């Protein structure tokens, strides 16, 4: 039976693809922890991680100072980069499929700015919503990001029923700069800690510790699960809303699920790391080029590579002109800008 053979063959190919990707991610994680002001050998990193989680005596082989650097400084930093990068890449892939627009990403759609706007309000007015506690920051960021998203989509639909690629991005950028100026105004009014705020706004995963990782993790898991359960719907939506409806996609429900989970991912990422642009643009594009646009595989692979990408970007940000640290957003924008231009060029050609 030739069919069975093809099925088996393609399944094998897919397994190879995932194994390769996970190894790539693990390598990025290890290198991300190993390199820095102090270089640490791989085996010591593995000892510490195993020692802290599985078998304590492993810790005896590593100096306490290195243990501290590994466990309390570098590991939470790469983990945060992993989750933030994964979240942004996933959100980007979801926005692109949903809007059938390869230029969409949390940053270009203005969702990141919307989330940042909410986060800045929480941070600088010191608001805490009862019952939410420390979750106030991510939840407000998610909420304001979602609202911004709805505004951008509605506004675009009013201008252009066909939701042209350029119109969506233009609207996103208008909203983004509008909200950005509000943020600037708030920062100017508070006056203090200016540099730190700007650093946060340009995006950073440094000095956040496990608390921030824990803060983002639940939203990350929820977002990825919801999106994975909507991968076929995203495939259908890639051909436009009408085709998706004809194929039997329950648009009202799916729309909200997809947009909400993308907002969950974006908002929580912004809340812990500020606005980091272009991850959601570059990574899905890259994965599509390598393995095609099927969302069943695009989503998990984009998540893996988004995480690995941000770990490497963070590594570059803190080592290129060490001891000075660059904002991570500078690195991602340096790569993302040309990719944006390239995709735009390809769109023109078609």
């Amino acid at each position: 039976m030739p069919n069975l053979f093809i099925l088996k063959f393609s399944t094998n190919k897919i397994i190879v693809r995932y194994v390769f990707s996970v190894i790539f991610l693990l390598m990025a994680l290890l290198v991300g922890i190993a390199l820095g002001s102090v270089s640490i050998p791989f085996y010591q990193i593995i000892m510490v991680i195993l020692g802290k989680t599985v078998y304590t005596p492993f810790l005896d082989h590593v100096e306490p100072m290195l243990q501290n650097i590994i466990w309390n400084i570098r590991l939470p930093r790469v983990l945060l980069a992993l989750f933030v990068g994964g979240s942004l890449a996933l959100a980007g892939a979801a926005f692109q499929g949903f809007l059938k627009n390869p230029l969409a990403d949390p940053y270009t759609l203005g969702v990141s700015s919307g989330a940042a706007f909410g986060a800045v309000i929480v941070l600088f007015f010191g608001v805490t919503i009862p019952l939410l506690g420390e979750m106030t920051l991510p939840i407000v960021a998610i909420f304001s990001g979602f609202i911004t998203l709805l505004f951008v989509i509605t506004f675009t639909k009013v201008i252009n029923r066909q939701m042209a690629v350029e119109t969506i991005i233009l609207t996103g950028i208008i909203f983004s700069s509008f909200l950005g100026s509000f943020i600037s105004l708030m920062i100017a009014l508070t006056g203090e800690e200016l540099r730190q705020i700007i650093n946060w706004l340009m995006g950073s995963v440094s000095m956040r510790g496990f608390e921030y990782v824990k803060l983002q993790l639940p939203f990350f898991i929820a977002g990825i699960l919801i999106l994975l359960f909507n991968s076929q719907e995203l495939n259908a939506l890639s051909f436009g809303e009408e085709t998706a409806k004809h194929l039997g996609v329950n648009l009202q429900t799916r729309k909200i699920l997809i947009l909400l989970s993308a907002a969950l991912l974006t908002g929580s990422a912004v809340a812990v790391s500020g606005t980091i642009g272009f991850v959601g643009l570059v990574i899905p594009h890259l994965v599509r080029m390598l393995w095609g646009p099927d969302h069943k595989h695009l989503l998990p692979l984009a998540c893996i590579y988004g995480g690995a990408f941000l770990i490497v970007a963070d590594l570059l940000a803190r080592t290129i002109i060490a001891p000075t640290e660059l904002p991570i957003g500078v690195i991602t924008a340096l790569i993302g800008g040309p990719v944006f231009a390239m995709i735009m060029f390809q769109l023109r050609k078609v």
Partner: protein
Amino acid sequence: MLLQLKNVTGGYNDLEIVKNISISVMKGQFLGILGPNGSGKTTLLKIISGLLPASKGEIFLNERLLSSYSAKTRAREIAVLPQKTESAFSYRVKEIVALGRYPHQTSFFQTKRMEDEQIINEAMKQTKVFEFKDKFLHALSGGEQQRVMLAQALAQQPKLLLLDEPTNHLDISFQIGLLNSLKNWVKQKSLAVIAILHDLNIASLYCDQILLLEEGRQIALNKPSIVMEEVQLAKVYKTALKRNEHPIVPKPLITFLPTSDDGATRNIIDSFSISQTTEMMVIHSPVPFKTLSSAVLGAGFSWKRIFINRHVPKNYHYDDAQAEFNSFLTAKKINSAEVIGMMTAANLEKAVIVEKKESNFSLLVIVTAGLSNAVDVSRSYFSTETKSTIGTINTWVFIEGNLPEAAFVQALMTATEAKVKALHDEEVKDPVTQTIATGTSTDCTLISASQTGTHFDYAGTITPLGKTIGHAVYEATRTAIQRDKGEGNVIKH
């Protein structure tokens, strides 16, 4: 009943675009929706597919309200092929067709993978895109893309297939190919098809039923032969058109009339160029004439500009006379597409030309006569002869006037009767039966009209046109017979 619309009204928001539509479609039916732009065809299709709600009236699918279906259960019954679909991403053909299985997949982890795979392959084979299955959609031509989307719709295994101008991006052979396959699927799979069609003739050929829309209102719903009525279509489309019948199948054909303003002059026949050699007589007309003839080349109704009467020896015999005639013309560098060609063994120099000018029409009659095979039609069943040899009366009638097809037939009858009377009065005998002949075994007649100037509804024997034809043909035939008999140029009266 698969689908039933009862007084359905709907559109976008408060704007009612289609009003009070009632149709019903059964399994195995092909319903075409016709109407000019803006008549609400696409809106109606969107209401049926569930994209737009009906503001008034009810829609039943399998005797159940359409609105009670979920998106997924509806997609198992109805598939849609839109005018144009595109994606910003490079999906492969197989992935796109596989999306058609979406309404049948109930969980995230699909269970029936092998079965799905089979249905997908089957759909790709049916639309002839299987060979492209690993190609990217955007690498295919418009027609191939359309077939990929059709494969996706078929993979849904719908009972009702909706098509919005399915032949829009296809060249003519694919249009016909697609519609032939659709027609077959309709029969084999007991599928029903509702298609918006642009081309009236394609609609006429393929639809069992046609819904004609005008400004959102249902003008007609019936068989093509009834809906496609000249006056009704001309009114809906606001275009001059003419209904004909298809030459092979019993369906109407619609043709459009270009409006021209070449002021019809009354001197077309005068400007004929007539050249005559012993080999052939050729008439060149400056404009094509609508011609009804029984000639060797160009028989039936046609529009022709060159008329040839060719002299052949008495023993001329070819199994394929048409092919021989064509190669004869090719050698003379004459394009046979414009030619009516006849043959005769008669001496062309004895051809008789009669011209008549009346106040509102002109007439030119040319007759050549060879009588060696004279036959009395009323006795010809006595004759054992079946092979026809050359010996012919060729009658050409050119009319400068405008005739409907009925008048052509009447003119043909009038000319024939005049010929028979001429043979009678000249006492031409059938050599076998020794009775008065009515013609020869290979007579050819041609009625040709410029279709300009005065309109004549009739050309029967007592109409002005018929009287003149009869008179001219009688006169010309008698003279031609006398010349053939060798009685010189004297006309007996």
